[in-house]
């Protein structure tokens, strides 16, 4: 089943175009890397697909439902329940402990406090940081913070995880450990992943790669030769 679909996405920041007509699909359980040089529109595409930004033109559909026309409240609810979002710098809440940070999306979605904490501890354990449950982000290393942030992004068991340079702030080995575990758990749960990166070695964790260049899909890019002429759908 198609999990995400974009058709003719256009988005500008003032006079500067970021996306100039993106058409693509991502299947359920698929891990897709979106790559390309700085400023090519990778992050804008992720924000449009995740319902954070509204495109100026074109459509975004999730499981066949067009979401770009939804209200901010409805899109926000979708992100809390069905989507997970992970950024380069984990963006943990500084005042909360690791367990409280990871439990937060569940509490916002209405899960009881005790059940949310139990789930948070399980997910912290899956990322090897259970011992940090009662530690605040300021007392953790960058790698530990990113492990907690990844656990938080997956704790609601989202259908789609959007990850924007999730290992960009980590050293090679730590980044690989976080990514390996993220990909393993996503595959186990058939979570669809949209992974933004500019690094070939990170993109290699994905099933498929979409290369952007100046706001359009570069069809001369990797593995996209079979794509139809009308867009980047595969």
């Amino acid at each position, binding site marked *: 089943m198609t999990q995400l679909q974009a058709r003719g996405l256009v988005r500008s920041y003032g006079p500067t175009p970021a996306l100039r007509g993106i058409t693509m699909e991502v299947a359920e359980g698929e891990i897709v890397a979106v790559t390309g040089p700085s400023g090519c529109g990778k992050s804008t595409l992720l924000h449009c697909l995740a319902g954070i930004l509204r495109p100026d033109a074109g459509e975004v559909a999730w499981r066949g439902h067009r979401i770009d026309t939804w209200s901010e409240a409805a899109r926000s609810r979708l992100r809390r329940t069905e989507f997970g979002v992970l950024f380069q710098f984990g963006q943990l809440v500084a005042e909360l402990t690791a367990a409280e940070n990871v439990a937060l999306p569940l509490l916002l979605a209405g899960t009881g406090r005790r059940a949310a904490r139990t789930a948070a501890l399980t997910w912290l354990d899956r990322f090897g940081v259970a011992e940090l449950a009662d530690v605040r982000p300021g007392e953790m290393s960058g790698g530990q913070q990113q492990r907690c942030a990844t656990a938080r992004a997956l704790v609601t068991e989202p259908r789609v995880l959007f990850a924007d340079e999730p290992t960009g702030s980590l050293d090679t080995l730590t980044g690989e450990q976080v990514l390996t575990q993220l990909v393993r758990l996503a595959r186990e749960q058939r979570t669809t992943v949209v992974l933004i990166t500019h690094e070939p070695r990170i993109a290699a*964790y994905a099933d498929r790669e979409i290369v952007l260049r100046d706001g359009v899909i570069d069809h001369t890019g990797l593995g996209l030769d079979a794509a139809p002429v009308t867009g980047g759908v595969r």
Partner: protein
Amino acid sequence: MSTPHVLLGLLAGGTKHGYDLKRAHDERLPQARPLAYGQVYATLGRLVRDGLVAPAGQERLAGPDRTAYALTEEGRDALDLWLSTVEPPMPHVNSTLFAKVVVALLVADVTRARTYLIAQRRAHTDRLRELTALKTNPTATVDDVVAADYAIAHLDADLRWLHTTLDRVADWHREVHR
């Protein structure tokens, strides 16, 4: 790669016969080209001739007798010297990949060179994905991971070069044919 020195290293832990050496080589260097038996025995012959390795008795398990080999003092010295000598970091740019792009620009047009670069980029990416799957497989040994890491780092560097060169092809072609 220096096969004689690798064999000396594999003998440093104790005597081994040719079959053991071949198996240990392929196990410890999982992404290297597997060693042929003929190459093992030919190399052992040269190492014995040079006094770096000596026969250390016959062994019969099943089938014919097998000669076990041991490292000599000279062999251990040669191994120590090899291990303490820093490899010259890329003294010459002599990869086939680089040469092929240069020649493509000399004898063909920008499109031909770019087509080659794109095809090569795809082949590199496919291999990168294969190696990533291999190293992230839960059954991968540390030998597998370290060997895959080495290959991935080199493929990653090649890919970066291919990406930037694709952007430079037109300028480069103009300069070559000025």
